[in-house]
């Protein structure tokens, strides 16, 4: 009881020093939390992927397409429930700075396959009815102030020309991990235009998205599909949605690793700062610890005083840091929505914050505590005189 009081009083004896150390801890935890959130944002697509979905693409590269005629053959494979398809459209809105993902998809099957894309029923009908209709995610619509009925014009890059779409719906994500920054429109619209302008590029899709009856069949079904098109002009590569997403990230893996590394470096730096504070503090109070020992307090008391003081400092900093992480992440989320469609502070990040504050608190105090515990009383007292 009393010892706890002494511990708190000790922690705030040097207000400026403690204050600065807490501030450092706050910033470190904030930085750590944001960096971890960037990492999980990177993996958001993987997170959002369903074990029930496969993606089939051209085995050479994503850049090459597949004939639409594959669809019927794929549907006949055992274990396949549903086949949808689409193209990465890559259209530009105004200019490159306004980047967002946009796809041409077969809308009925696509919406069935992706139940996490939530549209009010009337909006869904309106979208399905309008060949030039499009739907946009909530965040995307917010970003550009789009309203239902607006015409959105995209400049084609892969598919030349200016393309007008009428916004028929704004979808919401069912899950926190659902991307709300994408624009989807009718593949038929794309295909019919291609038929007129560049016929050799008509009836081609970038990828098939396949719903399977049982996630345990994923490997078998993938093999079966790829076998169908073996030795054809366009061989396929089928994988789970998760590995498909991971294959995108693997290109940028070095960056993710670097960010992870930096996030830990931040913690190591703050550990050095807190350790320095604790070393200074303990050195100044050696005489007091010697007195406590002379009075009969054991090493456990002394260690608890010092470890506790360190933990008070890191815990306060960490609580403030965690509290600051949410508004900061919110700000980042809107500022960086083009790069990170999903930018949420995961519970795991908070647990890591808490773990980091404990580890830093203890590690910073271990050496000072050992010194104080082991000092000879007579020497400790001598320091006062």
């Amino acid at each position: 009881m009393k010892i706890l009081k002494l511990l708190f009083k000790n922690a705030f004896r040097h207000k400026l020093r403690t204050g600065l150390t807490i501030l450092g801890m706050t910033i470190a935890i904030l930085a750590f939390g944001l960096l971890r959130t960037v990492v999980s944002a990177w993996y958001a697509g993987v997170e959002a992927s369903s074990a029930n979905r496969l993606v089939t693409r051209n085995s050479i590269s994503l850049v090459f397409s597949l004939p639409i005629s594959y669809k019927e053959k794929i549907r006949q494979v055992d274990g396949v429930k549903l086949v949808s398809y689409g193209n990465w459209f890559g259209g530009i809105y105004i200019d490159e700075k306004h980047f967002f993902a946009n796809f041409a998809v077969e809308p009925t099957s696509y919406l069935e396959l992706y139940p996490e894309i939530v549209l009010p029923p009337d909006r869904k009908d309106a979208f399905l009815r309008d060949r030039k209709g499009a739907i946009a995610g909530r965040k995307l619509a917010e970003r550009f102030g789009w309203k239902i009925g607006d015409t959105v014009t995209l400049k084609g890059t892969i598919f030349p020309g200016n393309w007008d779409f009428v916004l028929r719906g704004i979808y919401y994500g069912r899950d926190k991990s659902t991307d709300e920054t994408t624009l989807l429109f009718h593949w038929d619209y794309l295909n019919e235009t291609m038929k007129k302008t560049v016929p050799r590029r008509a009836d081609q899709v970038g990828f098939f998205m396949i719903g399977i009856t049982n996630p345990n069949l994923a490997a078998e079904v993938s093999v079966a599909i790829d076998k169908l098109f073996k030795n054809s002009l366009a061989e396929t590569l089928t994988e789970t949605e998760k590995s498909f997403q991971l294959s995108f990230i693997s290109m940028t893996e070095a960056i993710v690793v670097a960010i992870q590394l930096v996030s830990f470096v931040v913690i190591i730096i703050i550990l050095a700062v807190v350790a320095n504070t604790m070393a200074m503090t303990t050195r100044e109070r050696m005489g007091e610890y010697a007195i406590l020992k002379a009075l009969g307090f054991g090493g456990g008391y002394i260690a608890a005083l010092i470890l506790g003081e360190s933990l008070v400092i890191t815990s306060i900093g960490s609580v403030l840091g965690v509290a600051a992480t949410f508004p900061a992440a919110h700000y980042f989320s809107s500022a960086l929505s083009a790069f990170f469609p999903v930018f949420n502070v995961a519970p795991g990040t908070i647990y890591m914050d808490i773990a980091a504050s404990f580890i830093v608190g203890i590690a910073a105090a271990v050496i000072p505590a050992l010194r104080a515990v082991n000092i000879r009383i007579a020497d400790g007292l001598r320091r006062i005189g």
Partner: protein
Amino acid sequence: MENNKPLIVQIRDLYKSYRRGAQIIPVLENITLDIQEGEFLALMGPSGSGKSTLLNLIAGIDGADSGNIKIGGVEITSLSETELAHWRANNVGFIFQFYNLIPVLTAFENVELPLLLTGLSKKERREHVAVALRVVGLSDRIDHYPGQLSGGQQQRVAIARAVVTDPTILVADEPTGDLDRVSAREVLDLIGRLNTESGKTIIMVTHDPRAAERAHLIKHLDKGVLHEDTKASL
């Protein structure tokens, strides 16, 4: 002093040296000393003669090279570190030259500190602290922090802390060394009263003859050797 009182401190053939690098510096040599219960002993001697070292050994906060110290029947030279800490909590009251109060604790809390190691309830602790502070005349300074007290008052708080557990012996190392004359006299009066009125056994290191005068017995330490008793002129 009558000679029939029991011995509370028995020191036999005590040696203590410090090591400074490769050099060994002998500080205490072949010290043998008996102190009776209720004694008030002043240890005098020039600076560096080993007074504090001897006092620390008696108080169980430093270890000897060889020899024995028996206090109240306990052979403290053979106790483990933990046993010794426990023994100190119950048997020794400390008074230092620089008071050594904890600056972030009030007078009350400082005095209460050694009681936290006893099984006393909060209420009992409060009563003990109140009595101790009354004895040293600081009942009205209970909530003051050391920084808000004069040197003399701080030393009196330290004395209250030393006596609050009712220890077997009181050890004081230059208790007036940092005080002005008036405060020094007050503190010496107080220590004297603890001896005469409460029968406390007191061992006080000092090089101030005025302080030593208060003791019943004065021993001189010179170059690590204890010299003939000098009766205080009472």
